[in-house]
Protein backbone atom coordinates (compact mmCIF):
# COMPACT_ATOMS: atom_id res chain seq x y z
CA UNK A 1 0.00 0.00 0.00
CA UNK A 2 1.24 3.44 -0.85
CA UNK A 3 2.78 5.34 1.98
CA UNK A 4 0.41 8.28 1.77
CA UNK A 5 -2.67 6.20 2.67
CA UNK A 6 -1.77 5.53 6.33
CA UNK A 7 -0.40 9.05 6.58
CA UNK A 8 -3.64 10.49 5.26
CA UNK A 9 -5.71 8.34 7.64
CA UNK A 10 -3.47 9.37 10.49
CA UNK A 11 -4.03 13.03 9.69
CA UNK A 12 -7.81 12.51 9.50
CA UNK A 13 -7.64 11.27 13.09
CA UNK A 14 -6.92 14.82 14.16
CA UNK A 15 -10.18 16.57 15.15
CA UNK A 16 -9.52 19.93 13.40
CA UNK A 17 -8.47 18.17 10.19
CA UNK A 18 -11.52 15.92 10.29
CA UNK A 19 -13.78 18.90 11.03
CA UNK A 20 -12.56 20.72 7.93
CA UNK A 21 -12.64 17.55 5.83
CA UNK A 22 -16.22 16.81 6.94
CA UNK A 23 -17.27 20.38 6.21
CA UNK A 24 -15.82 20.17 2.69
CA UNK A 25 -17.34 16.75 1.87
CA UNK A 26 -20.78 17.23 3.42
CA UNK A 27 -22.40 19.51 0.80
CA UNK A 28 -21.18 17.29 -2.06
CA UNK A 29 -22.43 14.11 -0.40
CA UNK A 30 -25.77 15.76 0.34
CA UNK A 31 -26.11 17.11 -3.20
CA UNK A 32 -25.27 13.71 -4.67
CA UNK A 33 -27.82 12.09 -2.35
CA UNK A 34 -30.53 14.49 -3.54
CA UNK A 35 -29.63 13.95 -7.20
CA UNK A 36 -29.48 10.15 -6.98
CA UNK A 37 -32.61 10.11 -4.81
CA UNK A 38 -34.54 12.14 -7.39
CA UNK A 39 -33.41 9.85 -10.23
CA UNK A 40 -34.29 6.76 -8.19
CA UNK A 41 -37.74 8.12 -7.29
CA UNK A 42 -38.45 8.91 -10.92
CA UNK A 43 -37.34 5.43 -11.92
CA UNK A 44 -39.27 3.76 -9.11
CA UNK A 45 -42.51 5.73 -9.21
CA UNK A 46 -42.83 6.56 -12.91
CA UNK A 47 -40.65 4.34 -15.11
CA UNK A 48 -40.91 0.96 -13.37
CA UNK A 49 -44.07 -1.01 -14.20
CA UNK A 50 -46.57 -2.15 -11.58
CA UNK A 51 -46.00 -5.54 -9.99
CA UNK A 52 -48.11 -8.38 -11.39
CA UNK A 53 -49.28 -9.44 -7.93
CA UNK A 54 -48.96 -6.39 -5.69
CA UNK A 55 -49.93 -3.69 -8.18
CA UNK A 56 -48.52 -0.30 -7.28
CA UNK A 57 -48.21 -1.04 -3.55
CA UNK A 58 -44.86 -2.74 -4.19
CA UNK A 59 -43.34 0.71 -4.93
CA UNK A 60 -42.77 1.07 -1.19
CA UNK A 61 -39.83 -1.29 -1.82
CA UNK A 62 -37.83 1.63 -3.24
CA UNK A 63 -37.57 3.24 0.20
CA UNK A 64 -38.21 0.28 2.50
CA UNK A 65 -35.39 -1.95 1.28
CA UNK A 66 -32.66 0.73 0.97
CA UNK A 67 -33.58 1.97 4.47
CA UNK A 68 -33.40 -1.57 5.84
CA UNK A 69 -30.00 -2.06 4.21
CA UNK A 70 -28.82 1.21 5.76
CA UNK A 71 -30.09 0.21 9.21
CA UNK A 72 -27.68 -2.75 9.09
CA UNK A 73 -24.88 -1.05 7.14
CA UNK A 74 -24.71 1.87 9.60
CA UNK A 75 -24.56 -0.60 12.47
CA UNK A 76 -21.57 -2.25 10.79
CA UNK A 77 -19.75 1.06 10.38
CA UNK A 78 -20.63 2.01 13.93
CA UNK A 79 -19.35 -1.31 15.31
CA UNK A 80 -16.02 -0.98 13.47
CA UNK A 81 -15.61 2.62 14.66
CA UNK A 82 -16.56 1.65 18.23
CA UNK A 83 -14.01 -1.17 18.19
CA UNK A 84 -11.26 1.14 16.91
CA UNK A 85 -12.25 3.72 19.53
CA UNK A 86 -12.15 1.18 22.35
CA UNK A 87 -8.87 -0.45 21.36
CA UNK A 88 -6.80 2.50 20.13
CA UNK A 89 -8.71 5.28 21.90
CA UNK A 90 -8.93 7.38 18.78
CA UNK A 91 -11.30 10.19 19.58
CA UNK A 92 -12.64 10.64 16.04
CA UNK A 93 -13.53 6.93 15.90
CA UNK A 94 -15.55 7.29 19.10
CA UNK A 95 -17.35 10.36 17.76
CA UNK A 96 -18.08 8.67 14.42
CA UNK A 97 -19.52 5.65 16.24
CA UNK A 98 -21.69 7.75 18.56
CA UNK A 99 -22.97 10.08 15.84
CA UNK A 100 -23.80 7.15 13.55
CA UNK A 101 -26.37 5.86 16.03
CA UNK A 102 -29.07 8.56 15.45
CA UNK A 103 -28.82 8.16 11.66
CA UNK A 104 -29.12 4.40 12.03
CA UNK A 105 -32.10 4.86 14.32
CA UNK A 106 -33.73 7.14 11.72
CA UNK A 107 -33.35 4.53 8.97
CA UNK A 108 -34.56 1.75 11.27
CA UNK A 109 -37.64 3.82 12.12
CA UNK A 110 -38.31 4.42 8.41
CA UNK A 111 -37.93 0.70 7.74
CA UNK A 112 -40.46 -0.18 10.44
CA UNK A 113 -42.98 2.50 9.44
CA UNK A 114 -42.83 1.81 5.69
CA UNK A 115 -42.88 -1.94 6.35
CA UNK A 116 -46.00 -1.49 8.41
CA UNK A 117 -47.61 0.59 5.64
CA UNK A 118 -46.70 -2.14 3.17
CA UNK A 119 -47.86 -4.95 5.45
CA UNK A 120 -51.37 -3.60 5.91
CA UNK A 121 -52.49 -3.90 2.26
CA UNK A 122 -50.44 -7.04 1.49
CA UNK A 123 -50.55 -9.10 4.68
CA UNK A 124 -53.69 -7.56 6.17
CA UNK A 125 -51.95 -6.41 9.33
CA UNK A 126 -49.88 -3.42 10.44
CA UNK A 127 -47.71 -5.51 12.70
CA UNK A 128 -46.98 -9.11 13.55
CA UNK A 129 -44.34 -10.68 15.81
CA UNK A 130 -42.53 -12.13 12.86
CA UNK A 131 -38.79 -12.84 13.30
CA UNK A 132 -37.65 -10.17 10.85
CA UNK A 133 -39.99 -7.50 12.22
CA UNK A 134 -39.17 -8.26 15.84
CA UNK A 135 -35.40 -8.28 15.34
CA UNK A 136 -35.62 -4.98 13.42
CA UNK A 137 -37.60 -3.49 16.32
CA UNK A 138 -34.91 -4.73 18.72
CA UNK A 139 -32.36 -3.01 16.45
CA UNK A 140 -34.23 0.28 16.91
CA UNK A 141 -34.16 -0.15 20.69
CA UNK A 142 -30.42 -0.90 20.60
CA UNK A 143 -29.79 2.26 18.57
CA UNK A 144 -31.87 4.32 21.01
CA UNK A 145 -30.07 2.69 23.93
CA UNK A 146 -26.71 3.69 22.47
CA UNK A 147 -27.85 7.30 21.99
CA UNK A 148 -29.28 7.40 25.51
CA UNK A 149 -26.23 5.87 27.17
CA UNK A 150 -23.86 8.24 25.35
CA UNK A 151 -25.78 11.29 26.55
CA UNK A 152 -26.30 10.07 30.13
CA UNK A 153 -22.69 10.72 31.16
CA UNK A 154 -21.38 14.12 32.21
CA UNK A 155 -18.02 13.26 30.64
CA UNK A 156 -18.58 12.65 26.93
CA UNK A 157 -15.61 10.33 26.43
CA UNK A 158 -16.71 8.18 29.35
CA UNK A 159 -20.17 8.03 27.80
CA UNK A 160 -18.67 7.14 24.43
CA UNK A 161 -16.68 4.27 25.94
CA UNK A 162 -19.68 2.85 27.79
CA UNK A 163 -21.89 3.14 24.72
CA UNK A 164 -19.16 1.61 22.51
CA UNK A 165 -19.36 -1.55 24.63
CA UNK A 166 -23.11 -1.58 24.09
CA UNK A 167 -22.48 -1.22 20.32
CA UNK A 168 -20.26 -4.31 20.32
CA UNK A 169 -22.66 -6.36 22.45
CA UNK A 170 -25.64 -5.28 20.33
CA UNK A 171 -23.81 -6.34 17.16
CA UNK A 172 -25.06 -9.92 17.71
CA UNK A 173 -28.46 -8.67 16.57
CA UNK A 174 -27.22 -7.68 13.09
CA UNK A 175 -26.79 -11.22 11.70
CA UNK A 176 -30.05 -12.17 13.39
CA UNK A 177 -31.88 -9.44 11.44
CA UNK A 178 -30.15 -10.42 8.22
CA UNK A 179 -30.70 -14.18 8.43
CA UNK A 180 -34.05 -14.11 10.24
CA UNK A 181 -35.93 -14.76 6.99
CA UNK A 182 -33.86 -17.91 6.42
CA UNK A 183 -33.76 -19.18 9.99
CA UNK A 184 -37.44 -18.79 10.78
CA UNK A 185 -40.10 -19.42 8.22
CA UNK A 186 -42.55 -16.67 9.10
CA UNK A 187 -44.42 -13.94 7.28
CA UNK A 188 -41.68 -11.67 5.95
CA UNK A 189 -40.41 -12.70 2.54
CA UNK A 190 -36.82 -13.75 1.84
CA UNK A 191 -34.15 -11.68 0.11
CA UNK A 192 -34.99 -10.49 -3.38
CA UNK A 193 -31.61 -9.00 -4.15
CA UNK A 194 -28.63 -11.29 -3.86
CA UNK A 195 -24.97 -10.50 -4.03
CA UNK A 196 -24.27 -14.13 -4.92
CA UNK A 197 -26.47 -15.60 -7.58
CA UNK A 198 -29.32 -14.07 -9.60
CA UNK A 199 -31.69 -11.54 -8.08
CA UNK A 200 -35.41 -12.22 -8.30
CA UNK A 201 -36.30 -8.87 -9.77
CA UNK A 202 -36.71 -7.22 -13.16
CA UNK A 203 -33.97 -4.87 -14.36
CA UNK A 204 -36.47 -1.98 -14.64
CA UNK A 205 -37.19 -2.37 -10.91
CA UNK A 206 -33.63 -3.18 -9.91
CA UNK A 207 -31.86 -0.04 -11.09
CA UNK A 208 -34.06 2.44 -9.12
CA UNK A 209 -33.54 0.26 -6.06
CA UNK A 210 -29.75 0.25 -6.42
CA UNK A 211 -29.71 4.00 -7.21
CA UNK A 212 -31.69 4.66 -4.04
CA UNK A 213 -29.20 2.52 -2.14
CA UNK A 214 -26.38 4.78 -3.37
CA UNK A 215 -28.46 7.86 -2.48
CA UNK A 216 -28.96 6.64 1.10
CA UNK A 217 -25.23 5.87 1.40
CA UNK A 218 -24.40 9.44 0.34
CA UNK A 219 -27.07 10.75 2.68
CA UNK A 220 -25.50 8.84 5.57
CA UNK A 221 -22.10 10.43 4.86
CA UNK A 222 -23.67 13.91 4.78
CA UNK A 223 -25.69 13.42 7.96
CA UNK A 224 -22.83 11.73 9.83
CA UNK A 225 -20.40 14.52 8.95
CA UNK A 226 -22.87 17.23 10.01
CA UNK A 227 -23.31 15.41 13.34
CA UNK A 228 -19.58 14.90 13.87
CA UNK A 229 -19.00 18.62 13.29
CA UNK A 230 -21.69 19.55 15.83
CA UNK A 231 -20.27 17.04 18.31
CA UNK A 232 -16.68 18.26 17.94
CA UNK A 233 -17.68 21.88 18.64
CA UNK A 234 -19.02 20.76 22.02
CA UNK A 235 -16.48 18.09 22.95
CA UNK A 236 -13.41 20.07 21.81
CA UNK A 237 -14.80 23.36 23.17
CA UNK A 238 -11.75 23.98 25.31
CA UNK A 239 -9.30 23.73 22.42
CA UNK A 240 -7.86 26.69 20.56
CA UNK A 241 -9.02 25.56 17.11
CA UNK A 242 -12.68 25.46 18.19
CA UNK A 243 -12.32 28.79 19.94
CA UNK A 244 -10.99 30.27 16.72
CA UNK A 245 -14.05 28.97 14.86
CA UNK A 246 -16.42 30.24 17.57
CA UNK A 247 -14.91 33.72 17.58
CA UNK A 248 -14.67 33.66 13.80
CA UNK A 249 -11.00 34.61 13.73
CA UNK A 250 -9.32 32.84 10.80
CA UNK A 251 -11.96 32.26 8.16
CA UNK A 252 -11.56 28.48 8.23
CA UNK A 253 -15.17 27.65 8.83
CA UNK A 254 -17.10 27.06 5.63
CA UNK A 255 -20.87 26.74 6.00
Amino acid at each position, binding site marked *: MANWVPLWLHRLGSPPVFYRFAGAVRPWAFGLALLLGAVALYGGLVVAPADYQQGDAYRIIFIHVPSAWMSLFIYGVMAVAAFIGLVWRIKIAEVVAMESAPVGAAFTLITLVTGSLWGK*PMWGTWWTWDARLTSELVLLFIYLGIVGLYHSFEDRRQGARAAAFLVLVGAVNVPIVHFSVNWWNTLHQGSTIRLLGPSHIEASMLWPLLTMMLATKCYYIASLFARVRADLIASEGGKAWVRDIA*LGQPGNDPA
Partner: protein
Amino acid sequence: MSQFLAMGGYGSYVWTSFAAFFIVLLIDTLAPLARRRRNLRELRARLARQENRRRPGTPPSNESNA
Protein backbone atom coordinates in the same frame (compact mmCIF):
# COMPACT_ATOMS: atom_id res chain seq x y z
CA MET B 1 -51.94 12.56 -13.08
CA SER B 2 -54.77 11.51 -10.77
CA GLN B 3 -54.16 7.97 -11.93
CA PHE B 4 -50.54 8.36 -10.86
CA LEU B 5 -51.58 9.70 -7.46
CA ALA B 6 -54.06 6.88 -6.97
CA MET B 7 -51.30 4.24 -7.31
CA GLY B 8 -53.83 1.61 -8.33
CA GLY B 9 -55.85 2.14 -5.16
CA TYR B 10 -52.82 1.90 -2.87
CA GLY B 11 -52.13 5.66 -2.96
CA SER B 12 -52.61 6.27 0.76
CA TYR B 13 -50.12 3.55 1.73
CA VAL B 14 -47.54 4.47 -0.90
CA TRP B 15 -47.63 8.23 -0.33
CA THR B 16 -47.70 7.93 3.46
CA SER B 17 -44.59 5.76 3.21
CA PHE B 18 -42.76 8.27 1.07
CA ALA B 19 -43.89 11.12 3.33
CA ALA B 20 -42.55 9.26 6.38
CA PHE B 21 -39.24 8.71 4.60
CA PHE B 22 -38.83 12.40 3.77
CA ILE B 23 -40.07 13.76 7.10
CA VAL B 24 -37.75 11.56 9.16
CA LEU B 25 -34.74 12.39 6.96
CA LEU B 26 -35.60 16.10 6.94
CA ILE B 27 -35.57 16.18 10.73
CA ASP B 28 -32.35 14.16 10.71
CA THR B 29 -30.79 16.71 8.33
CA LEU B 30 -31.84 19.85 10.18
CA ALA B 31 -31.20 18.70 13.77
CA PRO B 32 -27.36 18.51 13.58
CA LEU B 33 -27.11 21.85 11.76
CA ALA B 34 -29.13 23.53 14.52
CA ARG B 35 -27.11 21.68 17.18
CA ARG B 36 -23.81 22.90 15.74
CA ARG B 37 -25.03 26.51 15.74
CA ARG B 38 -26.31 26.14 19.31
CA ASN B 39 -22.99 24.62 20.46
CA LEU B 40 -21.09 27.52 18.87
CA ARG B 41 -23.41 30.04 20.54
CA GLU B 42 -22.97 28.41 23.96
CA LEU B 43 -19.21 28.30 23.49
CA ARG B 44 -19.12 32.01 22.62
CA ALA B 45 -21.18 32.81 25.73
CA ARG B 46 -18.82 30.74 27.88
CA LEU B 47 -15.75 32.44 26.44
CA ALA B 48 -17.35 35.83 27.09
CA ARG B 49 -18.04 34.89 30.72
CA GLN B 50 -14.45 33.74 31.18
CA GLU B 51 -13.17 36.97 29.70
CA ASN B 52 -15.42 38.92 32.03
CA ARG B 53 -14.16 37.02 35.06
CA ARG B 54 -10.57 37.67 34.08
CA ARG B 55 -11.13 41.38 33.53
CA PRO B 56 -14.20 42.41 35.58
CA GLY B 57 -16.12 45.36 34.32
CA THR B 58 -15.71 44.55 30.65
CA PRO B 59 -19.17 44.69 29.13
CA PRO B 60 -20.11 41.50 27.36
CA SER B 61 -19.72 43.22 24.04
CA ASN B 62 -18.20 40.25 22.22
CA GLU B 63 -21.53 38.53 21.99
CA SER B 64 -22.65 40.75 19.15
CA ASN B 65 -22.87 37.90 16.66
CA ALA B 66 -24.44 35.42 19.08
